[in-house]
């Protein structure tokens, strides 16, 4: 990107493509996770109790996938929620407060979810 001369970029923050693409990549990851989870619930033998349910998440590959999906979900939700605030909330002060709340809310959930996962 040129930032000098008469061809310099003078408009836009240029995060549009990054947000658009990351929201789609994270969405596909979550769909794959959903399919993997439903498939295991349906295909595993035995009654759907604690052992079967916790056993699904105890497998190392599932921990791997779940951890990535927790991060993907947070990033996906951040892009989406920020879009909502940018569309409807015009006073910058209030928008900043809501954006900070969004980040705090999501980071807290990422920490909690990861903690649960690592204990398994």
């Amino acid at each position: 990107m040129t930032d000098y001369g008469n061809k310099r970029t003078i408009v836009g923050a240029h995060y549009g493509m990054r947000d658009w693409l990351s929201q789609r990549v994270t969405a596909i990851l979550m769909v794959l996770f959903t399919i993997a989870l439903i498939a295991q619930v349906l295909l595993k033998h035995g009654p759907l109790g604690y052992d079967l349910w916790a056993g699904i998440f105890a497998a190392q590959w599932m921990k791997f996938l779940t951890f990535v999906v927790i991060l993907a979900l947070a990033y996906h939700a951040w892009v989406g929620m920020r879009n909502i605030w940018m569309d409807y909330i015009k006073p910058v002060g209030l928008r900043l407060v809501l954006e900070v709340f969004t980040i705090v809310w999501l980071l807290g959930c990422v920490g909690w979810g990861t903690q649960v996962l690592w204990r398994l």
Partner: protein
Amino acid sequence: MTDTAKKRPEFRNINAFKDLTTYRMTAAAWTSILHRASGAVMFLLLPLVIWFFDTSVSSEVSFERFTSAFSSGLGIVPGWLLKLVSLGLIWGYLHHMFAGIRHLIMDIDHHAVNNQFGKTSGLTAIGLAIVLTLLLGARLFGLY
């Protein structure tokens, strides 16, 4: 020119009650706003989802607490309300996913970006989410 051209209504400050109610909401418009609404609801209820995850996988004792929350309630929240909120989350997840897959199809295949596909795929996303929610809801509330 100015005589024949009909003056189009111009909205500078949209009133939620006076202006929004006059919008003609097409199937694509419903899919879109429900996509956004379901996303916002899931964001707000994310701690509840993590609580479900935490209690359901952490130990057999917590798993017991997880299942009993739906039958005998959780604190001041009665079990049926928790079931209803969960069903709302289930609908939100399904609608958001189907509407999202619809977006991906439109991203990949630009022939899909037209009024007809917008309508049929929108109705498909809305319909699939509602039908699956009703089926899972019947199971959740013990109808089968």
